[in-house]
């Protein structure tokens, strides 16, 4: 069993290793004989990425958009999830609407989303880039599962003590839901960081491009520069891996809670 797990782990990690190796050696996939061991390693491909394109500018755009998305996800999703813990008329209908909207792919709503963003004057802006991901249904239900698990007695006693709704959300719901927050942070960050189609639609100015757009352009311009291309891929992937590793334990417990109670 352990051998099987080891084999699966190698299968998963090998492509990542290959990307890292190519970014350091420039040996592309067609080199013969293929070598697993890196030869003549250097960091110059990473240096080229920084100097050939305005990488820092693109990275800053991605960071700004991702921070907006993460913060708004935590705020809006927790508010929506808190509302869903209450009993009110047509609650099953509201939940049904939420769930059914998950089944509509974003591509089908992209034209109305574009028109709306244009009417708001947010085309070509960081807020406009973040807009469609500011609240996500999956993350609302991650919060809802976590909030549902909080004993009613704690909420009721806080209410009896005169705690306001905002304070209830802040000091009880969110304080007791760190796995759900971690899950929101990771999912929102990854979705925002990897988002390609929406920035492609609304960004007009090169200075507003995010990393996935820049990567696509880099690929179309410089097909034969495998070392630089793979270095770019590594630089794009590092923040996502770092965010996951920083939140890994809580993320897994948050997802598991959602799986059991969602």
């Amino acid at each position, binding site marked *: 069993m352990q051998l099987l797990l080891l084999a699966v782990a190698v299968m998963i990690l090998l492509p990542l290793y290959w990307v890292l190796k190519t970014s350091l050696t420039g040996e592309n996939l067609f080199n013969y004989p293929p070598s697993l061991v890196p030869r003549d390693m250097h960091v110059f491909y990473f240096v080229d990425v920084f100097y050939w394109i305005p990488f820092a500018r693109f990275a800053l755009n991605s960071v700004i958009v991702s921070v907006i998305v993460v913060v708004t996800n935590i705020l809006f999703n927790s508010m929506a999830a808190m509302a869903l813990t209450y009993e009110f008329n047509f609650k099953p209908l509201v939940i049904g609407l939420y769930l059914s909207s998950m089944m509509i792919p974003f591509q089908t709503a992209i034209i109305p989303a574009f028109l709306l963003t244009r009417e708001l004057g947010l085309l070509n802006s960081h807020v406009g880039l973040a807009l469609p991901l500011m609240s996500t249904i999956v993350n609302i239900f991650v919060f809802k599962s976590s909030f549902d698990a909080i004993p009613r007695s704690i909420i009721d006693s806080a209410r009896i003590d005169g705690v306001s709704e905002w304070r209830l959300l802040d000091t009880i719901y969110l304080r007791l839901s760190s796995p759900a927050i971690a899950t929101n942070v990771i999912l929102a960050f990854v979705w925002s960081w990897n988002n390609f189609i929406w920035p492609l639609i609304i960004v007009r100015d090169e200075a507003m491009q995010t990393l996935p757009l820049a990567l696509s352009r880099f690929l179309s311009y410089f097909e034969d520069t495998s070392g630089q291309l793979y270095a770019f891929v590594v630089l794009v992937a590092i923040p996502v891996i*770092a965010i996951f590793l*920083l939140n890994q334990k809580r993320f897994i417990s948050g997802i598991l809670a959602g799986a059991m109670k969602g």
Partner: protein
Amino acid sequence: MVKRWLIGLGVLVVLVLGAWIYIKANQTGEVRGLVVDGAGRPVAGATVRLREKTLNLIKQGITTETDAEGRFIFTDQAIIEFFIDARTDGVVSEEYRYHLYFKEQDFELPDPIVIPVE
């Protein structure tokens, strides 16, 4: 969780700051080196040509001459990758290619440029 984030952020800040300080301390834009003949003796008065390599092209070269000790220096070079060769009395050396870690890096060629003359 917050502690882990702060440590991660702190490490990142230290790395970026360290790299920035190192770059600022070594950003003179000078490329220096030595030209020798086949026997390893310095070649005085040799013409050294440096050609910057950019993303799409290799630029027209700039030249300088070696001093009595066979040494040369190019100043104010905001380059990241370049080719360099030397010639004297119509004999040309092999062309060497170097890549720098950052623009305007203070760089001493690790090996002398060898012109195959006796």
